[in-house]
């Protein structure tokens, strides 16, 4: 999956690019809006991540240019301003998603996969781990032929885990992704929901797909891949 990444802050850009590469993305990083504009016009990308405030042509300008050429490549707009106006304008100009800074790399990865999936259609609508499959179109989860009934939040939680297999997700990352509201100190909502999800996914005789990383968070990992 090839990404155009426009970000003028070298420090942030540096570890986002490294992180995305580790997740298997191919990234073209530019720090200047004019360069970004040229790359967007020429290159074939699966998705673009555009920061609004950059030197040269700004992220919204590039988005406008991309859409005016009937290019439907998924675009995620990022900004440190966090203004609602920016978000509304971005979405009105045809952005697929909006991510206020600072964002978690895990969140960017999840959003990139989600926008890409939506644009790619049916072929990408399935996630799998061991004998667990999740259909994102029909919103069904099946393990070993057994249909699992999940609430909307449990489903969102499961998808988030399965999109970053093997990666530890912290409680805060989880709560900010699954719940729309912000950091809520002292909450154990995540633990409660993971416990519920775990009981539903892992039947008594089945190998557990979840792993609690004490003091850190949780991750999903196929039994075979699990480090000993």
């Amino acid at each position, binding site marked *: 999956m090839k990404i155009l990444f426009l970000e003028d*802050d070298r*420090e*942030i850009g540096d*570890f*986002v690019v*490294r*992180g995305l590469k*580790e997740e298997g993305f191919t990234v073209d990083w530019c720090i200047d809006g004019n360069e970004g504009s040229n790359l967007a016009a020429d290159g074939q990308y699966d998705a673009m991540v555009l920061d609004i405030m950059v030197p040269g042509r700004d992220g919204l300008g590039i988005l406008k240019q991309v859409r005016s050429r009937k290019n439907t490549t998924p675009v995620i707009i990022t900004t*440190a*301003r*966090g*203004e*609602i*106006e920016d*978000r*509304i304008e971005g979405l009105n100009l045809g952005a697929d998603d909006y991510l206020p*800074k*600072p*964002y*978690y*790399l*895990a969140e960017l990865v999840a959003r990139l996969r989600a926008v890409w999936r939506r644009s790619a259609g049916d072929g990408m609508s399935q996630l799998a781990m061991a004998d667990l499959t999740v259909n994102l179109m029909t919103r069904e989860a099946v393990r070993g032929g057994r249909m699992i009934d999940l*609430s909307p*939040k449990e489903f969102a939680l499961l998808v988030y885990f399965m999109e970053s297999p093997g*990666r*530890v997700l*912290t*409680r*805060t*990352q989880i709560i*900010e992704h699954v*719940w*729309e*509201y*912000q*950091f*809520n*100190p*002292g*909450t*154990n*909502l995540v*633990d*409660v*929901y993971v*416990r*519920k999800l775990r009981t539903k996914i892992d039947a008594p005789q089945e190998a557990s797909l979840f792993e609690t*990383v*004490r*003091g*850190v*968070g949780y991750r999903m990992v196929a039994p075979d891949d699990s*480090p000993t």
Partner: protein
Amino acid sequence: MKRPKFRFQLMSWTLLLTAIAVAASFLVSAHSLKKSFTDEIDERLHRESKPVLAELKSLQQGGVQPKRGIELETRPTGLQILRVQQNGKAHRVQYALDDMLSEKQRAASVGSEFTIRGKNEKWRVAVISDGDQTGWFARSLSETDEEIAKMTKRYLRTMPLVVVFLLGSIWWVSGRMSRPVRELAKTMESFDGMNLSIRAQDDGVADELGRVTRSWNRLMDQLEGSFRQARRFSADASHELKTPLAALQGRLETALRKSEADNEVRVELAGALERVAEIRSTLDGLLLLSRADAGKLSLQTSPLDFSALVAECLEDTSAEFEAEDGKVSANVTPNIFISADRRLLLTAITNLLSNAQKYNLPEGGTISCSLEPVENSAVLSVTNTGLPIPEQDRERIFERFYRTKSSREQGADGQGLGLSLTAAIATAHDGMVWLEKSDESGTEFRFSLPLAEK
């Protein structure tokens, strides 16, 4: 103490003082008039009596004694001769008048003057001597008394006119004088604590009022200045802190991904990441509040099913609170629609519900939540068991970063922004949030928003 209006005070005081001044001036002029008349009469008595005494003397040398009805050539009209005394012998001339003299007056020394009261009029008497004879001469004071009576009458007749004129002019003057005071008061009253740009009209006059006006305006300038600075400070600080925070968060996240093997390091990194999230959330809260202060909180409003939103939040609260052996009871009237910014409304509801959880009993607590339409509003009520909020904290719990002593002691997590955010969100939606009650039976907060128009 109830004080009448400035204008009436001014009027009544002026009236009283004028009355005293007029009365005093009347008394003084009446007195001096009387004195000058009397002096004139005294002088006349002395002057006129001299030839009379001389005539009497020459008559006496001819053997004629002064007696009743004596005709004298030198006596002018109006001059009365009461008696004439010579060598210890008194000759009475005017019996009627002489009878009115007291013993003391008959023994009065030569040169003295006094007033006696007759039947119808007063008389001025002077005791005059030419060496041999001493005479008691008198003139009527009726003319003087008449003059004074006339003057009194004139005074009394013009008094009401003066009073009416004074009242009218004081009314006008006091109105003119108090108008700027009233205008200043009106301006000051219109200050509601929100609009800091209110200034009083300054006409540049250097009187006391001008000074009050300028002091008030200066005070407002300072207030507005420090308010604006405080607002800008939190907005600027939030922006400025976000960039390094983004880098910090990114580095920690990268480190966490790289530290698979060492769990101790991972725990530290995850903890640090949580803290970053906490700072970020505080910054976002401050930014939101500073926008709300400036009246620039932009809302992305859409019609919302308030009931469904509350039910969704309650689901989480139940899941979490019941895991801690608490009980949640809910009474949510379905299909209550409002127009609101979904994210902000969620923040407000979650704040109230998470407070109800945080400040609850350590075990076996309850939370009851209801949503119902009341007149034109949707009212969300959240009640929890636990220690009541102390009386002195109740006014201040909606202030930024304010935390009650007990909440600090309980060690409850939180930034102390929750309730002020909830209040700002309520206000931005033309709604409000308030503490309904807090006693042994529980603490209840209410949050109301206007219902969507149908």
